[in-house]
């Protein structure tokens, strides 16, 4: 697992409303676009000049991002704050309308309850 690349994806997309909207509407296309147009450039600020030769998503990482699979991301040790905030950005309003305040966050926690009492995967890169 590269983990760094997944964190970079979450960091860049969460801080850009246009990218976030694309990630919500068509995650497969968005992840492919990011892999081609964002991952190969140095740094986290979205510049398009200096290239890096190795930053790319592994297949399992790409699948987890396409599926919005925050449980898999947690289990890979992707940073908890980046994962939580981007999916709150995507899902919170829709869940709020259906289930009230914190409906999404509670479902998120429930899906991770098999980790209760265990040491969590490290978020160190």
């Amino acid at each position, binding site marked *: 697992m590269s983990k760094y690349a997944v964190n970079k994806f979450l960091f860049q997309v969460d801080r850009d409303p246009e990218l976030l909207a694309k990630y919500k509407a068509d995650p497969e296309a968005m992840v492919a676009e990011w892999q081609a147009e964002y991952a190969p450039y140095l740094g986290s600020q979205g510049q398009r000049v200096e290239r890096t030769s190795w930053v790319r998503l592994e297949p399992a990482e790409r699948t987890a991002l396409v599926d919005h699979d925050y449980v898999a991301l947690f289990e890979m040790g992707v940073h908890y704050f980046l994962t939580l905030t981007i999916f709150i950005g995507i899902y919170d309003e829709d869940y709020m309308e259906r289930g009230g305040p914190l409906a999404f966050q509670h479902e998120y926690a429930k899906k991770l*309850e*098999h980790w209760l009492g265990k040491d*969590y995967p490290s978020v160190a890169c």
Partner: protein
Amino acid sequence: MATLSAVLATTHHPFFYKATELTPREDQLPQAGEWKAKVAAYQETLTAAEPELLVMVGSDHFHQFFYDNYPTFLIGKQPRYDATFYNEIREFSLPTYELEGHEELSGYMFQGLLDRGFDLSISHELKLDHSIICPIITTRPQADLPIVPIYTNIFAPPLPSPKRFYDLGRAIREIIDEYPSDKRVAAVGSGHLSLELGGPRMFGEHGPDPAWDVQAIQWLANGDIDAILANVTWESMSKSGNATPGFLDLILMLGIAGPEPASYVDDLDLFHTREMYVTWYPDGDPRDRAATAEAEIPEAVRA
């Protein structure tokens, strides 16, 4: 020499403003009124110290810093600071701010820390996130004082030890004490008690480890750095919640105050975390002075 008139260590709750100011009264949390009253009382502990300058300690939450270049400790040196980030406005409904900086104290602090063996990063383009803006909202809502921001990494492991955070606080204290100025400086820093984000214990009825919270507040209230250093490690904090290492910034604030009992301690158990408000007065409790002054006024004059 400058006077360190108050040291405040607090949790920062990004939803306080939304929960109390933006939500209609009938839709507010049951604790909203009590929360607001406690914050107002805490704000008064800073106001009473009559600060002219704020040294503010916080942590970027992946808003500006990332794993490609994550500073362990960083100081800002700018004429102005902007806040807040787009995704914090989106998630927390935080207002934007433009705070005045104090480049002279920033430079003096930076050099003083380097001289003491703390090799901080420096930023001339730092934007503030909710770790600093939430304490502004709660302790100085008029946002009228120049600030010196110090950021720490409590987020992207591996991290420095609790002792390193405490020692950095001690160094900051020395530098404020030596700063050649007649200004009254207050230090305001924010962090976490037990906290879980993006894990199975998040957003429960209480914080992930209420017993640990009570213990941690006692340690800070008593200025008991020995107990903290004997009990607090990355592993022990992580067992109490995956975001609990934010407690490191509260240890740093104890370093600025020194191993002394606090003059003011309060807390509030909210639905997923415990809020905490602590104040030390290195220059003596101004509230005592005010009470003494009032007592010395002759009865006839007072009438």
